[in-house]
């Protein structure tokens, strides 16, 4: 019973999308650190991507709502912790693919230099960094010299 509920909670979590990148599930972005199911509670531990991310509260509320739907009478508690630190290496292949489909180039695995990042539009590696700071704390602004489109890249962290 408890094992089944844990699977249901994980499934529910995989339907919680990042409000600023609505094609990416928080499970694929590596935000979910721990799920603990006991007789009277479900505890979900999340990691903040960037500490100043304004979506953190929205993600917590969405997570609470999604887990409560499967948790029945149990209390649902969702908390952020800082240890271990979230890094871009926690984004899985499905998350990377979702980012690309949204026009955001995923970060290269660290500590590889963040150069020649493929353009999410045309795939060319002839890209440059325009600014390490983009429209959200977790994004950079890049430019593709092949298809001449600006695009966003996930800011490498780790």
């Amino acid at each position, binding site marked *: 019973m408890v094992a089944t509920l844990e699977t249901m909670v994980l499934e529910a979590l995989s339907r919680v999308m990042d409000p600023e990148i609505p094609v990416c599930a928080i499970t694929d972005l590596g935000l979910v650190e721990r799920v603990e199911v006991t007789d009277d509670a479900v505890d979900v531990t999340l990691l*903040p991507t*960037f*500490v*100043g*991310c*304004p979506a953190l509260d929205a993600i917590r509320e969405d997570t609470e709502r999604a887990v409560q739907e499967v948790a029945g009478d149990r209390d649902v508690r969702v908390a952020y*912790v*800082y*240890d271990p*630190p*979230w*890094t871009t290496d926690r984004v899985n292949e499905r998350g990377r693919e979702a980012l690309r489909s949204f026009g955001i180039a995923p970060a290269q695995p660290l500590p590889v230099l963040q150069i020649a990042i493929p353009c999410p539009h045309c795939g060319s590696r002839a890209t440059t960094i*325009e*600014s*390490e*700071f*983009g*429209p*959200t*704390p977790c994004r950079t*602004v890049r430019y593709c010299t092949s298809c001449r489109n600006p695009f966003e890249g996930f*800011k490498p*962290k*780790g």
Partner: protein
Amino acid sequence: MSDPRLTLLLALADDELVMGHRLSEWTGWVPYVEEDLAMSSIAQDEMGHARALFEIAATIDGRDVDALALGRDADEYRNAVICERPNRDYAYTAARHYLYDTADAVRLEALQASTFKELVEVVGVLRLEERYHGDHARVWFERLSTGPVEARQRFAGAMSEALPEAMAIFEPLSGEDALLADGTLPRSGEDMLATWLATIGTDLEAVGLDAVLESGSEPTVGEMVPTSSGASELTDDARPLRVPGLARRDGSWVHAGEFSGAGGRQGRHSDDFPALWEEMTGLYRAHRGATW
């Protein structure tokens, strides 16, 4: 404020909060859009860092994060005065950005070895993000210090003015001895100041801006005023903060003398602070407990 850990947390959090507030004033006003985004993003990061630090402080103090960030009287803020100074022009903003972020890097590196577990966890994450601020500050340091004559002159002038107040980032905290004794603070302010000065001294010499350091060779007496009734217990620290001077010894810059008097770490702020405080806390004070 009996727990010295709270003094440390508020010093760190208030620096980030007030710095973030000042930098956010650039949003929409920076001459080109990429830099506007960068400045706004850094401001947002600093606010987030303040929040993470206030979260720990809240577990000691009992007040919630908003009450700590926005519900205190002006003389309860413990930020260094450099953080509250108006942005003025981009030369001053860039000079302060460089000085503040290099100082913050020294401080965070030291705190990584703290015995205060919750703080160490947050510091680990903040350092991953501050790296980008440091890179950004260095880009502007190089661009302005090696730039056309006017850029270089204005940058050097701004640096001379900001340097003594930036040294006061390391003003001793009340209760610092206790923090050092139990390992919460692995290095004293004096000790961290020495490391920081050696770093910025090398940077400034490399671009031929030694004159800036000469300007810091005379101890600086702050023009600080208590920001409210004066009822705070200022004991022997009733005098304004006197920042030690600089001297070049054995190939590197060191501080000559000791801090005396009181500045931002004791709640004594400049006359630039009340207006910032009014604006920053106005909404919270007008609508306590309001939610989005």
